[in-house]
């Protein structure tokens, strides 16, 4: 097991350094002088320009700059935002719970609906429930979620008037963030109605974000179930006279779930890409919206730091999934 973990780390660590090079290179490929960009409309004198260049270290050779950058990254210093002057890491940590809450809710919706859909489709292979569910899944998989989110708003906020369009909670409620998760904080605040307000605000963006992972999970569950259902041990279980419920629910599902769990882990990156669009549309104050805004404001330290932090999160989640997978399924460990 230890050698398996070490082998995974041997792949992950170079990838992390690769991402730092990518984040570093992206910023250096931006045409134009970063100091002129920083100064913006005001402009600045030549002396001040040279002074700033020395201060930021951009007059030194690239390799030296990169080493300095890596040193900073490893000590948690990702620079500060041009706009707000707060450290990038602080801003990230402040906004991250909002994105996490949205993503976890979306993933829960996706699993709760996608898993049964896949199982039902597999059991009814070739019949109408299979065709309907898989047709729906492929439609969900093809969905432009920036459009889907607009349609949800149009129907549920505009036409039916059920849900609000923006923010995480009604302005009627105010409390100090404890965990950063609105659902938990609203319960902790003890204010009646606060929790429901938070749920109301969350449900639409979470549904929009859940669409694609739900479709992926449903499709994966179906094909994984079909594969397992044709195995010999299932026939044995049936021959023993076990109830179909037990054969499918216990014997088949347990093995069918292994690839599904991997797929759920792999969806984390896709989920984040979706969060960028969802947060922008619902004005959800999370990482995705922050990054899109910082790009349009040309706030380069935020762009650079944000990419690095998001990529690191994705790498760590995938590593965790890999290791868990190795724990669950001993066959994986040897394959490496």
């Amino acid at each position, binding site marked *: 097991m230890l050698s398996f973990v070490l082998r995974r780390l041997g792949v992950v660590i170079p990838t992390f350094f690769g991402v730092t090079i990518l984040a570093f290179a992206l910023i250096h490929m931006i045409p134009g002088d970063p100091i002129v960009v920083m100064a913006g409309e005001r402009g600045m004198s030549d002396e001040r320009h040279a002074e700033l260049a020395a201060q930021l270290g951009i007059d030194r050779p690239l390799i030296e700059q990169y080493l300095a950058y890596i040193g900073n990254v490893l000590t948690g210093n990702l620079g500060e935002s041009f706009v707000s002057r707060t450290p990038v890491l602080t801003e990230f940590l402040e906004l991250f719970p909002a994105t996490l809450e949205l993503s976890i809710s979306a993933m829960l919706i996706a699993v709760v609906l996608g898993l049964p859909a896949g199982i039902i489709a597999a059991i009814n292979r070739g019949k109408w429930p299979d065709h309907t569910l898989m047709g729906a899944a492929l439609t969900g998989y093809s969905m*432009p979620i920036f459009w889907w989110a607009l349609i949800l708003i149009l129907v549920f906020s505009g036409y039916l008037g059920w849900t609000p369009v923006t923010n995480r909670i009604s302005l009627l409620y105010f409390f100090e963030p404890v965990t950063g998760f609105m659902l938990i904080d609203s319960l902790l605040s003890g204010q009646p109605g606060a929790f429901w307000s938070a749920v109301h605000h969350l449900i639409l963006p979470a549904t929009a974000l859940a669409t694609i992972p739900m479709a992926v999970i449903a499709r994966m569950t179906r094909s994984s179930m079909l594969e397992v259902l044709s195995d010999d041990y299932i026939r044995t279980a049936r021959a023993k006279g076990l109830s179909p419920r037990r054969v499918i629910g216990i014997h088949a599902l347990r093995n069918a779930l292994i690839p599904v769990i991997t797929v759920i882990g792999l969806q984390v990156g896709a989920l984040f890409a979706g969060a*960028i669009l969802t947060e922008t549309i619902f004005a959800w104050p999370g990482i995705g919206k922050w990054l899109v805004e910082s790009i349009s404001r040309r706030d380069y330290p935020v762009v650079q730091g944000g990419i690095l932090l998001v990529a690191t999160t994705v790498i760590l989640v995938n590593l965790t999934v890999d290791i868990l997978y190795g724990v669950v399924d001993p066959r994986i460990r040897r394959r490496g």
Partner: protein
Amino acid sequence: MGSSIHAFGDVAETVSVDTSNSQGSNATASTADGVEKAPHPLLEFWLAFSENKGALAGLIFIVIVALAAVLAPQVAPHLPQTQFRDALLQPPVWYADGTWQFILGTDDLGRDILSRIIYGARLSLTIGVIVVTLSLATGIILGLTAGFFRGFVEAIIMRLMDVIMSVPTLLLAIAIVAVLGPGLENAMIAVAIVVLPSYTRLTRASVIAERGKVYVTASSVVGAGLLRQMFVNVLPNCMAPLIVQATLGFSTAILDTAALGFLGLGAQPPTPEWGTLLAESRQFMQRAWWVVTFPGLAILFTVLSFNLMGDGLRDALDPKLKR
């Protein structure tokens, strides 16, 4: 003939010999004598593919969209940029105040939505072709190199792909556009880079599987050079999964470029790109639902069609799934 595994067709679909025979007269003729001798590989492929009703529907829709795109000046009722100042936000034809002049209604500047969607199809299909060609060609070369040279070169290429994959696609595309500057061309380059790992990894995996086979050893004994091995002997045998991936790649390309357009980083208004159309008209959505609904449906149906076709191709080309 059993039913294919990914049959996403109509609810009432029943796959049988009769239905696949009724697809075309030539198919009927050749299955009859196909009993004695094996049919031509292309025909065999077409029979397997057309058995999947969903894939066939996808193909038909794409052909229609492609024809509309090519013939846009002939089929579109108006020019995409013509503004009818006396018909702002006019509803579609089935409303009391809708007219046949603007079948799907008009936007806030009085431009015909149907015409903008038809001209937008030109862009979206061009985007698909360019992005898929760019990423497929680069991915094949990188994958072949990694598969043939192994060792250090392979490690560098594959780690680079890991790095690209660890950044969420849209975020990386946004970052690349931020560096290159917004615009349709840069958006396409960004999307092509983002989808590169899937082609590279797929090529490399097939190359490694193929290299161990006898025909490769045989031709190297006869004296085939490296380039001949790579491109003439091995590559054609790796094409099946790549064709499937490229078909699915069209949908990714169209979706991601539209998403960039929607965020204001892709095609710039007044270009009638589908994502840009959505972004432009978003603020009028509550007053006029048709301004966002139809461009989005165009994206959805096109992407869905490519996905249906990709699934059908996979079933038809993948020998492992073939009965």
